[in-house]
């Protein structure tokens, strides 16, 4: 598996740290209901197919990345920097 970092180009999977579902970008408000925090921290769609998750380019540019990929085929469909997303850095 190779990921194409928007800054560094195509790199081996070993350079990256997998953090988890894209859900981590949608942090609830501090006063949100406990259920919202439980969903944010623990509960997952966990799709068999296309998913979007967060990776960190640990041994590269230190960017946080949103990777769109297929969990059944391991195909990487898109990689974008979290900082480039609407709303800026998480």
């Amino acid at each position: 598996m190779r990921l194409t970092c928007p800054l560094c180009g195509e790199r081996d999977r070993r350079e990256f740290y997998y953090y988890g579902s894209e859900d981590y970008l949608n942090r609830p408000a501090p006063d949100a209901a406990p259920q919202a925090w439980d969903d944010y921290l623990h509960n997952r769609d966990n799709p068999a197919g296309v998913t979007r998750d967060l990776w960190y380019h640990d041994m590269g540019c230190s960017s946080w990345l949103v990777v769109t990929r297929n969990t059944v085929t391991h195909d990487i469909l898109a990689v974008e920097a979290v900082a480039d997303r609407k709303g800026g850095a998480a």
Partner: protein
Amino acid sequence: MRYSGLKVITEGLFGNKGWKPAWRDPAPKAEYDAIIIGGGGHGLSTAYYLAKNHGLTNIAVLEKGYLGSGNIGRNTTIVRANYFLQGNSEFYSHSMKLWEGLEIDLNYNVMHSQRGLINLFHSDGQRDAFVRRGNSMINQGDDAILLDREGVREMLPYLDFEQTRFPIYGGLYHPRGGTARHDAVAWGYARAADKRGVDLIQNCEVTGVDIENGRVTGVQTTRGAIKARKVGIVVAGRSSQVAAMAGMRLPIESHILQAFVTEGLKPVIDHVVSFGMGHFYISQSDKGGLVFGGDLDFYASYASRGNLPMVEHVMEAGMTLMPMIGRAKVLRSWGGIMDMSPDGSPIIDKTHVDGLFIDCGWNYGGFKAVPASGWCMAHLMATGESHPVAARFKLNRFATGHILDEEGTGSQHNLH
């Protein structure tokens, strides 16, 4: 048909013409008292104990492929009861006791071999942690023996004791730990459940869960609708998909775990050896193959195969620990889909839907749990109450903070 030594001899004398299929192949009925979704180890044992312990025999196991085609047929077969936390330790202790009587109970040879498991340690701090774990195991009524370096050398003379990165200080020896023939566990439970009247329905994929007024009424399948007042979801790596049919979003992320087996060799590794610092463990199957594995690939996946970085890592760890295996040829490697929970512990609980139960979150340790998981899931489905040894495996424990974090690494999806 009861299996026995006499039966084997008699059949051998008369051309082996008297053997019959080990279970029936029934068509699904329109309605059952209870349905188990998933014909793997946990689903089959749940059905067996529902019939045996609770007298429920009008039940069906629905399997989308063939029986035992998932993780029960794809694991590294280790059986152990060496847990530390209350909540886990009594459960795995119960499972070990069931393993010890399993072959007689099922009238099936599951080749359970209590060859002993040794967890190696490599520093004073790690030794102290293993002393605490060993004491916890003894307090639970199980067995643990602390071995010093010479004690380990006597049992495992082939290890590289002089390695500089992880010098071997000793090991925690769990004599009742060992292995079992994984497929035979599925087949044994299937045959024993079938004998008690359970319908094992293969090639029957569940496509929907019927719910009326907050109560489960049955399931939709590729072989038609089937009614039932009680439904148990026991589908391991596919838990999120089946639970979604009932409107649930689980605290589960499915990950890939790879394992490897070499060509058959003469007996060389007599125990199960675990090298935690290198993320490597190994045993030798009765056929002679060295069966070994390591850590997760560490990204969500349903691919049933992993990537090369973890292959390389596992091989390196094996060579670091026991250089003698370097000449063995690897025959196969494969990946299983692990239903990982945030804290690394399982879930056996009711759901928000009346009559709908779930058994999942077995992480990378489901095989040894097969007997007790079925026992406790059957208890829950029959009585509506959690079994005492599985009372802490709650679905909502992440929300309430009652987590069971055996490794002490935190309650987060990428940490176990």
